């Protein structure tokens, strides 16, 4: 995953930041417990957001523990874990497995081959437990490949492949909140896809690889057009989010959806600004 769905630290209170970190470390811990240190490597901010969202909505009790970890071996860190971190860890492995497999088939990447081979056993087990989500991931990535091959330029068509995958992953239990969660996931997924395409644009153009924004990037006001598109998606995403009865940690969730998701875009703008200034 990509890590765009992150917090905006300056606006968070200290205790909220500590709690966010505890969720993040908790997910990392769950990945390690279930899927060895290899699983830990797949940890992402995007998936931490899902843990906090589902925990807030389902008010699932959390266990607090303190552990050392490889990244911070000297100090013990607080970690929050629950049954949702287990679900999200499973989804994370499934998404990573398919992503790696795709890289291997697509670019003959060695990391892709090695990674997907190593994760294959885990994936098979997850697929048995969550066939609905795993089928959606397979279908979404196949649809993305088709878009690449046909050089699709309609951004709605391309990004919805990723949005539909996320919709299924966000729909934790297919219950009365399922529809709302699907919509949050769908629009957030579309946002992530476009943000990623925007982030990779220069490199894709240089390497002559497919990028759905390539044609549009020649327009004037390209940056503000992309921003307007992403705003439109986040507006839908948050409208659906605000209708869900989330109360616990809602400040963290809002910080991410209204501020944090723009970090990468703003950094990119800064980079462009300095390049022009030189």
């Amino acid at each position, binding site marked *: 995953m990509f890590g765009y769905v992150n917090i905006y630290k300056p606006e968070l209170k200290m205790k909220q930041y500590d709690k966010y970190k505890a969720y993040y470390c908790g997910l990392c811990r769950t990945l390690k417990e279930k899927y060895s240190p290899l699983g830990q490597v797949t940890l992402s901010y995007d998936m931490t957001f899902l843990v906090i969202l589902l925990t807030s909505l389902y008010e699932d009790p959390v266990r607090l523990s303190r552990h050392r970890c490889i990244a911070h071996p000297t100090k013990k860190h607080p970690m929050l874990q629950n049954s949702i971190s287990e679900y999200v860890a499973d989804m994370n492995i499934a998404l990573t497995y398919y992503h790696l497999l795709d890289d291997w088939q697509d670019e003959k990447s060695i990391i892709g081959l090695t990674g997907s081979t190593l994760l294959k056993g885990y994936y098979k087990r997850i697929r048995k437990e969550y066939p609905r989500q795993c089928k959606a991931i397979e279908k979404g990535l196949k649809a993305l490949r088709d878009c690449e091959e046909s050089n699709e330029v309609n951004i*709605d068509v391309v990004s919805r492949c990723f949005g539909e995958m996320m919709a299924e992953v966000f729909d934790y239990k297919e219950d009365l909140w399922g529809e709302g969660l699907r919509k949050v996931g769908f629009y957030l997924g579309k946002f992530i896809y476009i943000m990623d395409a925007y982030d990779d644009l220069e490199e894709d153009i240089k390497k002559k690889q497919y990028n759905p924004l390539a044609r549009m990037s020649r327009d004037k006001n390209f940056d503000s057009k992309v921003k307007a598109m992403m705003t439109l998606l986040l507006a839908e995403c948050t409208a659906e989010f605000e209708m869900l009865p989330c109360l616990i940690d809602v400040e963290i969730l809002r910080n991410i959806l209204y501020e944090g998701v723009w970090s990468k875009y703003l950094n990119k703008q800064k980079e462009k600004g300095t390049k022009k200034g030189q």
Partner: protein
Amino acid sequence: MINDPYSVLGVSPSASNDEVKRAYRELSRKYHPDSYVDNPLSDLAEEKFKEVQEAYDMIMKQREGGYSSWNTSSSQSSNYSSGSGEEDVRMQAVANYINSRHYIEALNVLRSINNRTARWYYYSAIANVGIGNNIEAMDHAQRAYMMEPGNPDYANLVNQLQWRTRRYQGSSVNSGSGYGMDDLCCDLWCADTCCECMGGDLIPCC
């Protein structure tokens, strides 16, 4: 249908979203079917549980401004009859599909029509919103509006599509980080249309 969803949740209509959510949480815990297994009151509790659910949905939908009430009666459009008879029939089919929420079918028929009038873009925008293609929807709604600026349906559609964006940007402004007020006017490629169709009142600084 519930008459007064606020009284079901026991909150006032001026309650904040979070207060509504808190009341909803409390009541749905109280009436949750799991707490009434083998209890003679279980039917009553289930009914209450559903009522609470419905009241909550009603309030949230009202507050978040869901999309509603598109005008698909063709008599509204002045340029409408310029197409061939065959195309009139197809446009009517599109309107019917939209009214019954069959958006994919509506888009399929739209694709078969070559004469892209303002009405065509209007319908295409509505159908695209329906399936979550909101980028294309915004683009087409604006085309319809630019082709026939005097048509209240088109202006209304553009305005409705921008409602959530304004709410989102308003919320970001409140918490005041890098994504703020300066961007509100200059960044949306639709800002002009939005100001015009709202009589210039919407974003005072435009």
